[in-house]
């Protein structure tokens, strides 16, 4: 067995176990956590170019799993998120929690389903298989979103469904046109003819819906804000990323040759708009979780703003690394932020930013976690967020692209504006409100994630090397030439 399919199989096994265990589902994490973290670590240190054909079926029929840079960065981060969230949810979704017992039944299996689905998504190159994984993840995500507000969950579900069908349509076209839907093979066979371009269009559109890129983000804030904290964390941190990863595979691997710069610019422009719009919306929010949700809308913009920068860079490896580092650090930071927000809001039994007054004294650790996450999200040094923004800005300036550079700078400032607002409320007031002392285990989760996001800022070189492992030719830069660690 290679870690590649274990990474997919193990969570599914745990899902089944959780379904069986029912009430006791939460105990599984004690086993799942170490196992998955170990597998992720194993994945990271695999020699470059390791690939694995599921069931030894050869392409095009077989399904190829491989440990490229994307996987090596995103799989460990995802595992970290899931473990942390699970630790946090330990109390929230426990039988003891009374009314939430019903949720406890659904939450734990969904968690593992989402885990397996996303891992599969990062590892596979088969577009149809990707469709399956994204549906697995969507299913879990919808279930989790529904825990908060059924209406929001339903809306999310329907929109996501349309998105995935659009994607499926594209897959159908490709399958009939090229008799394969494997990205690596398509990279060789793809021709810029009408069906292909149509396929790319519908697939991209579908994925953009799932990724909630402005102006397709309408469903995201209500769903993410309404869900219980651990669910929101997973929705914002993990679920969104899968669609993005698939887009990366399409745009820079399968069809890198035939995609026109204009298209890249279009995506970049939407990304820019998303950054500005999302930030402005976040600034306007009065409810903490809505603020965080809109910040997700804004942060997703950076991922797409990078597209043209990667496409036009003379050394694409750096922006490529930047976009992956951004995805990872946003994953960690956003999860941490939602968890910390959940802790604080639960403590003060409110959901408004103004309710946080004085928490810096009452719950220093939670506020610290929130602050660290905020630093990374606002792209302030030292943090993964900064490294990503730094590399992107560097690329933008190198290519003399004024607009992306300006958007990066302004977006960072806006980010600081909306992220420091809750903080300054937390610092306000000299009298601490009377709230329960923080439970170390639960605070540890967001704190650890946020610290990781910060720590990424010190590992720039390592991240860049990782991201360049088995990178598609379109984004392979001189960095790849250097031998690995």
């Amino acid at each position, binding site marked *: 067995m290679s870690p590649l399919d274990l990474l997919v199989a193990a969570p599914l096994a745990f899902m089944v176990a959780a379904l069986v265990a029912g009430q006791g589902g939460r105990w599984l994490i004690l086993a799942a956590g170490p196992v998955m973290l170990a597998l992720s670590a194993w994945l990271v240190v695999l020699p470059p170019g390791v690939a694995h054909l599921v069931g030894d079926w050869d392409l*095009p*029929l077989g399904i190829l799993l491989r440990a490229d840079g994307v996987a090596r960065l995103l799989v460990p981060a995802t595992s970290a998120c899931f473990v942390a969230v699970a630790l946090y949810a330990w109390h929230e979704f426990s039988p003891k929690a009374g009314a939430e017992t019903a949720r406890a039944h659904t939450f734990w299996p969904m968690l593992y389903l989402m885990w397996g689905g996303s891992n599969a998504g990062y590892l596979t190159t088969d577009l*149809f298989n990707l*469709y*399956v994984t994204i*549906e697995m993840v*969507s*299913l879990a995500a*919808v*279930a989790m979103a*529904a825990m908060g*507000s*059924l*209406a*929001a*969950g*339903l*809306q999310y*579900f*329907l929109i996501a*469904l*349309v998105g995935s*069908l659009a994607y*499926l*349509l594209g*897959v*159908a*076209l490709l*399958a*009939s*046109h090229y*008799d394969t*839907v494997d990205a690596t093979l398509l990279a060789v066979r793809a021709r810029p003819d009408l069906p292909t371009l149509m396929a790319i269009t519908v697939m991209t559109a579908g994925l953009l819906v799932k990724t909630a890129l402005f102006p397709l983000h309408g469903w995201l*804030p*209500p769903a993410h*804000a*309404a869900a219980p904290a651990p669910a929101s964390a997973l929705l914002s941190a993990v679920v969104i990323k899968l669609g993005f990863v698939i887009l990366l595979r399409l745009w820079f691997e399968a069809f890198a040759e035939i995609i026109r710069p204009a298209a890249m610019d279009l995506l970049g422009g939407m990304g820019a708009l998303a950054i500005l719009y999302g930030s402005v919306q976040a600034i306007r929010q009065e409810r903490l979780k*809505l603020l965080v949700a809109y910040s997700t809308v804004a942060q997703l913009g950076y991922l797409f703003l990078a597209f043209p920068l990667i496409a036009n860079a003379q050394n694409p490896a750096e922006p490529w690394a930047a976009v992956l580092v951004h995805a990872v650090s946003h994953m960690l930071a956003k999860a941490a932020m939602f968890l910390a927000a959940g802790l604080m809001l639960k403590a003060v039994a409110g959901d408004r930013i103004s309710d946080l007054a004085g928490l810096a004294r009452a719950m220093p650790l939670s506020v610290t976690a929130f602050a660290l996450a905020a630093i990374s999200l606002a792209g302030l040094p030292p943090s993964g967020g900064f490294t990503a923004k730094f590399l992107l800005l560097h690329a933008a300036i190198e290519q003399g692209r004024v607009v992306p550079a300006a958007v990066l700078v302004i977006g960072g400032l806006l980010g600081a504006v909306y992220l420091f607002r809750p903080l300054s409320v937390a610092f306000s007031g000299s009298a601490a409100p009377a709230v329960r002392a923080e439970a170390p285990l639960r605070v540890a989760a967001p704190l650890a994630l946020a610290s990781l996001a910060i720590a990424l800022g010190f590992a720039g070189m390592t991240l860049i090397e990782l991201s360049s492992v088995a990178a598609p030719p379109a984004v392979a830069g001189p960095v790849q030439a250097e031998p690995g660690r």
Partner: protein
Amino acid sequence: MTVPAVLGHLFPLTGAVLVGLGLCGFITLRHPLRQLLAVNVIGAGIFLILGGLGRGEGVTDPYPQALVITGIVVSVALTALGTAMIARLSEDRRAAGSGPDQPKDQDP
């Protein structure tokens, strides 16, 4: 033009029509259940295209078939989830006193 050729294009074209209908439905209809059905229509259309295009001269290519089957399984699962949610939602609404056919107005 020969019959098989026509047939060869018949399935994809029908599928396309279905997809279009489904989209119209999804856009125009407000009730979640109807929208879910519309989505299913779209799905059916897509599977038709998938299968149809795969259908070569005489021989049938197993690959699209496999995809179609998988796709159907997935859509069934999702439809089940969706209907469950809609059912729950309408129960809640009824409990809250508003009729089941109210267009859903979600409150974030």
